[in-house]
């Protein structure tokens, strides 16, 4: 396990370096010189512009620019945001809690729905419950979140008038905060639940026909303990790994929901950054998500080995 981890860590670092080169390259060779997006800003006086260009190394060849950028990034210097006029680090950190709250709640919601529904579906395969839940799962992942979001607004804001659809980060108090989070969390959470339910059901179906489950039944255990202790525990191993892999996707999924409900989170910051060609912000968020993807890949591998004693990494 130790040797595996070291090798895995080295591969991860190499992957991250390659990813950062790809991302930087895409920005650097893009037409219109987006790396110097501030150059078109009339508020920046020419001599200051020259200084910024020099300090960012924009007159160096691209590989040298990349190295300078990577060195600064590693030291925690993510440059100034072109538009927010504050260090990118502070800007991203100020947006992060909102996204974590919304996306985290959505993640929990999707697990709370998917695990029981998927398990019951599998135990009662072809029952009415199974058919209804499978149909809902199918509908769920054919519905894009930007349409579900609009449907929710139409139903809960326009028709019923229960919820306001504009998220306000200044709102205080527990209940108002919960109230304004309901729709974004529900939209993201239900979309995640639709995918996860199918996965839990498939994994449970595979487990439920195993010999050890039949043995548990044959020795007279109660059905509840057969299902919960023998079948479900094993069926959830691949589910946990998939969950670990889905964590970085939460940030990708948040982009659209944050846009619909005007949630001032990371996804919104990325879209605003793209529109205003705020390269340091775009770079920091894109690369941040890349780090999450790589790290959670390793976590998924480790979890798999910890949870399933049959898996041994040499």
């Amino acid at each position, binding site marked *: 396990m130790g040797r595996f981890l070291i090798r895995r860590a080295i591969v991860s670092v190499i992957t991250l370096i390659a990813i950062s080169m790809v991302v930087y390259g895409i920005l650097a060779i893009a037409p219109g010189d987006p790396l110097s997006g501030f150059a078109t800003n009339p508020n920046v006086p020419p001599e200051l512009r020259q200084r910024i260009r020099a300090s960012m190394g924009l007159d160096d060849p691209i590989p040298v620019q990349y190295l300078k950028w990577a060195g600064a990034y590693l030291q925690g210097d993510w440059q100034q945001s072109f538009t927010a006029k504050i260090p990118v680090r502070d800007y991203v950190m100020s947006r992060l809690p909102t996204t974590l709250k919304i996306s985290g709640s959505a993640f929990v919601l999707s697990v709370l729905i998917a695990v029981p529904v998927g398990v019951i579906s599998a135990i009662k395969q072809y029952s009415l419950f199974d058919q209804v839940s499978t149909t809902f799962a199918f509908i769920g992942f*054919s519905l894009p979140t930007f349409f579900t979001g609009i449907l929710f607004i139409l139903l809960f804001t326009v028709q019923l008038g229960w919820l306001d659809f504009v998220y306000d980060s200044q709102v205080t108090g527990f209940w108002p905060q919960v109230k304004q989070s309901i729709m974004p969390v529900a939209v993201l959470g239900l979309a995640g639940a639709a995918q996860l339910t199918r996965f839990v059901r498939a994994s449970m179906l595979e487990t439920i026909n195993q010999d050890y489950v039949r043995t548990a039944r044959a020795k007279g255990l109660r059905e509840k303990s057969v299902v919960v202790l023998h079948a479900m525990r094993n069926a959830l191993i691949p589910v946990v790994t998939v969950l670990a892999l889905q964590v970085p996707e939460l940030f990708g999924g948040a982009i659209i929901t944050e846009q619909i409900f005007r949630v001032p989170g990371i996804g919104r910051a990325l879209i605003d950054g793209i529109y205003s060609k705020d390269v340091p912000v775009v770079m920091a968020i894109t690369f941040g998500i*890349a780090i999450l993807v790589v790290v959670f890949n390793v976590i998924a591998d480790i979890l798999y080995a910890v949870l399933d004693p049959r898996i041994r990494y040499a």
Partner: protein
Amino acid sequence: MTQGANLKLKTAPGVLSAAAPPADAPSISDQSLQEATTVGLTVKKQRSLWGNAWRQFRRHKLAMAGLALFIFMLLATFVGSPLYPQEIDAIDFSVSGSGISAAHPMGADSLGRDILARILWGGRISLGVGIVAALVAILLGTAIGAVAGFFGGVADSILMRLTDLFISLPQVPLLLVISFLYRDAFFRFFQDRTGSGVVGIFVLIVMVIGVLSWMPTSRLVRASFLSTKEKEFVEAAEAIGATRSSRIFRHILPNVMSPIIVAATLGVGAAIITESALSFLGLGFPSDVPTWGSMLLEAKDRVEFAPHEALFPGMMIFLTVLSINYIGDGLRDALDPRKTQ
């Protein structure tokens, strides 16, 4: 109970756990019974592999419904759009935001443009992007997976590291960044050469979606190639002097097609959602080109007064993707040899 008994009678032992839903059982057994009684008297037509798959597919009612709906969407958008008399950009403020009427079957948008005309016109783009992007992803994935699996060695490890790298890329942010940064350049480049900048955006979006989604296919194809190339029939082909390309294309590839076809089908739906999401964020086609996603974007802030503007394009995306997902589900069952009866 009787249904269960029928099922048991008619399916091979190994198939039981994965048998078709019980609703299909009566028709299956009736048909098989008939065949069983007539088999001695008539010469049965030989079944081909694809004929078999089609017979299986037809039994999947929802997949057939999905196929019918998808064909209807294709006809409506590609054939219906040129035939439909209304223009997509005829502005008429007197009907701005009006609902369903005889003149405008799906109502009109904020500028009074006919929504049905825009849905039919934009549907060609949404469906076209979906189909072509899925094709790009499948071709790339199949080529890379086939080379890695067949040749092994250095080629395999290089290509698999490449696959790992692409899987680790932050897909959604990259998709947004690339389409935003490069769309003007593609637009101008194609406008100068082909006279239509929209073609350039189409090429860009199809390429970006394809290049960011070939990886699962490549892993799948590699694994299938690895196991299939060791089979006796491939060895036999090699022994009678089949060339390398004939072994790849005539002996191995047809045997690994089933999962590729399923992946391609589901890929079309995923690509349609991706393109719509791009347009919804304002990062897809230019604003004068209607697509289902950009119509949703325009309608988003007007749902209070004109919900139909959002509902119709949204339903089009939903129904199209749903039909494709059911087709994929049906194909998965139909092409799975363990389920063939």
